[in-house]
């Protein structure tokens, strides 16, 4: 049995997980229309390959990956492409992005699927290609293309695969539910992932507030040939952060600015493991996921199996939305999720929760007060930062001090802001601080390049001027030399003489 290690800081916000009835899965069905953003992952957006009016089948590619760090998008069901245009996507800024819109026909006709039979005998590259073709991107929230993450094993030797079933954010029970209903699929997916990267060990980490999920995973793991360990550890937010989970399970810290592969570890979300397994075993692309629709402004919250692209409005009506008590719509959990302007936004591959709290449940924050440097934030910080110092430096726009205090090691978990007695939106200051430092760096690169170009131009002009000068000087020198060497005849006199001679000869001819 693996020893469980403690991490610095962390908080215990009310879990509120029972609200969404973990373990019970409902289906959201096929909505009238699906909106599929071309950028649902980290990296370059996919490129649409369908046109308005095309009839598409389930599993058909709507957009191709553009470059290595990108994934394709597939149709979740059959229907007609009714638009390829800018639509609002889930983004903190209310961004609009290119989307493929499908009017579903309800027939749910699918293309024939092409599984990868006998994956154990196939080279890992073939499996990675299959995962990539299925459009799998990390389903825990970041949405990093899974195939690219698996390729990292080329550079590092991966010893242990960690399946991150921590789900430490309050309210969310999507992974909990998945672990209860699809434990076998997760184990199978983990085996495939371990095969691809050559990991000897598989470790599944789950917080101890999910006893049913732990039991289901242990049961499934015991059926398996491989030695798979399901580790449970005390519930504390943010234990599910990748770096935090690595420390809890191994006692090692991922060096700053590096990835767990540096320690021979690869972390994957249970949803991603199932998506990989479906891609290999069934040849099915990633077109659906489990999402928690919860909050007290709903009469029937729960976990839903939804098609990617399903509008949030559709899900809210399924869960019995009562708008009179609600002012906020949150994509993700209460700690790290972002508020959406409108419910007319689709679910994407990284959506794990839609939270619709009542005003009483999560009140609108009061205006912030002055920081009294109480240090509760530093006690809560899982990265052992000094949040109150970072706050002062961020306000003073002191980028040097921000970097010296390791601003970029902040994972934006929100634990500091949660405990802050002055209600200061600390994370927002850190985001702004990071953005301004990135801006400054880019500005520096830009100005360096401009300066280099300017200097090169100055040099070129100077060189050309010098060359011209040199040529002129050479010509002048040659002329002078010519003038000096004999032939002292005045050219003007010579011309006059020639003209006279010509005149005489014409007169003689007359």
């Amino acid at each position, binding site marked *: 049995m693996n020893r469980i290690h403690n991490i610095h800081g962390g908080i215990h916000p009310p879990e509120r997980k029972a609200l969404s009835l973990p373990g019970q899965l409902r289906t959201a069905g096929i909505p009238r229309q699906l909106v599929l953003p071309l950028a649902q992952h980290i990296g370059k957006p996919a490129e649409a390959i369908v046109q308005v009016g095309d009839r598409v089948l389930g599993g058909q590619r709507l957009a191709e990956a553009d470059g290595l760090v990108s994934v394709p998008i597939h149709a979740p069901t059959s229907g007609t492409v009714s638009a390829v245009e800018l639509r609002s996507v889930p983004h903190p800024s209310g961004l609009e992005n290119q989307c493929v819109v499908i009017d579903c026909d309800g027939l749910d006709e699918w293309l024939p699927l092409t599984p990868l039979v006998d994956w154990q005998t196939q080279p890992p590259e073939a499996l990675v290609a299959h995962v990539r073709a299925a459009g799998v991107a990390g389903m825990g929230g970041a949405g990093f293309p899974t195939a690219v993450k698996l390729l990292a094993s080329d550079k590092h030797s991966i010893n242990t695969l960690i399946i991150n079933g921590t789900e430490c954010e309050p309210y969310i029970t999507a992974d909990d539910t998945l672990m209860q209903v699809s434990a076998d699929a997760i184990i199978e997916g983990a085996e495939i992932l371990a095969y691809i990267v050559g990991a000897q060990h598989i470790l599944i980490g789950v917080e101890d507030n999910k006893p049913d999920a732990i039991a289901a995973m242990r049961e499934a793991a015991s059926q398996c040939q491989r030695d798979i360990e399901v580790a449970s550890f005390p519930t504390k937010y943010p234990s599910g952060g990748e770096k935090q989970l690595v420390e809890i399970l191994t006692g090692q810290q991922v060096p700053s600015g590096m990835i767990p592969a540096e320690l021979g570890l690869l972390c994957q979300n249970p949803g991603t493991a199932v998506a990989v397994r479906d891609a290999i075993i069934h040849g099915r692309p990633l077109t659906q996921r489990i999402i928690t629709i919860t909050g007290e402004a709903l009469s029937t919250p729960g976990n839903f199996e939804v098609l990617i692209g399903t509008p949030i409005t559709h899900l809210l009506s399924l869960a019995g939305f009562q708008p009179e008590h609600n002012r906020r719509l949150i994509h993700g959990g209460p700690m790290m999720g972002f508020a959406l302007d409108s419910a007319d936004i689709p679910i994407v591959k990284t959506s794990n929760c839609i939270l619709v709290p009542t005003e009483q449940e999560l009140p609108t924050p009061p205006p912030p007060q002055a920081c009294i440097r109480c240090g509760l934030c530093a006690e809560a910080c899982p990265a052992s930062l000094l949040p109150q110092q970072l706050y002062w430096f961020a306000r003073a726009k002191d980028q040097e001090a921000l970097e010296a205090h390791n601003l970029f090691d902040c994972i934006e978990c929100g634990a500091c802001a949660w405990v802050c007695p*002055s209600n200061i939106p600390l994370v927002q200051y850190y985001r702004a601080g990071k953005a301004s430092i990135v801006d400054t760096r880019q500005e520096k690169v830009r100005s360096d390049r401009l300066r280099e170009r300017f200097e090169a131009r100055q040099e070129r002009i100077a060189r050309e001027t010098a060359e011209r000068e040199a040529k002129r000087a050479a010509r002048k020198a040659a002329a002078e030399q010519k003038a000096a060497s004999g032939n002292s005849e005045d050219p003007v006199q010579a011309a006059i003489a020639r003209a006279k001679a010509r005149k005489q000869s014409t007169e003689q001819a007359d």
Partner: protein
Amino acid sequence: MAFLRITSPHGHAANSVASVMQAVLLATLPGVFALTWFFGPGTLLNIAFGGLLALIFEFAVLKLRHRDVRFYLSDYSVLVTSTLLCIALPPYAPWWLIVVGVATSVLLGKHIFGGLGYNPFNPAMVGYVVLLISFPLQMSSWAPPRGLAEVPGVMDALQAMFLPQSYDGLTMATPLDALRQNTGLLMVDLQSQPPFGHIAGLGWETVNLAFLAGGIWLLYKRIFSWHAPVAMLAALTLAALIGFDDGSSNSGGSPWVHLLSGGTMFGAFFIITDPVSSAVSNRGRLIFGALIGLLIYLIRVYGNYPDAVAFAVLILNFAAPFIDHYTQPTTYGHRGPKA
């Protein structure tokens, strides 16, 4: 349908500046009760009068600074400042002493730097030190404790405060005064004198234990961390052990006297724990507290003033940013050699 756009996190713990300040005020109750029991109603009157003045000053400054008066007054911070100052003042102090003290604390200690959160020095101690240097006579006139003299009544206290010329109250040297002025007595003999009580001074030992109880409750409520108080008490104990000199007439006094006399416990749990003016990291707070403990001992034994908490705290307030600079905790992923 448009929803509110608010940045994460969307939830918040049930704590606020006001609740922190209220907890500190509540935690002073055992100590204030003990002070009142042994020295009469003078301290209570100080606190009430000082609190009223503090609210008036705060109100006036907030108006001058065009701040939302209701919003800022409801954080209770000015009441904490005035209460802490008034606990430290001698009971039966004249009214003008309290006016000068509270005005200095609130105006010079706090608002001149920008108000709550911006003050580099502990405001209550700024007021206290200004009074101590300016009015040493009034500041060193402590009433004798119950058991050595009759405790004044409420009317006496009012008279002392508002008609100080006509009030003829008893005053008496505190145990720390006696210790500092000791020449020639062995500690055993000195401590057998009446003001020393059982351990560290009649009344004083109970008052200190009462403030210790309040402080432990604040620790339990996680209002502050244990680092600064524990470091201060440990350093003071260690220094007193070294300087005890086996109880000779040159002794600096036993650790018990230092721990349970004067403002030790009040300082350890209510003054040096002021977060605004202390060091920020836990390691920094250990250093901050330990140096205060050491300075308290040195000033008590070798200095000109009988008690030293206020001076020690102000000096270390100066040093806090410097301590912070060298005690930044190791961030996650920064252990070992940098890649």
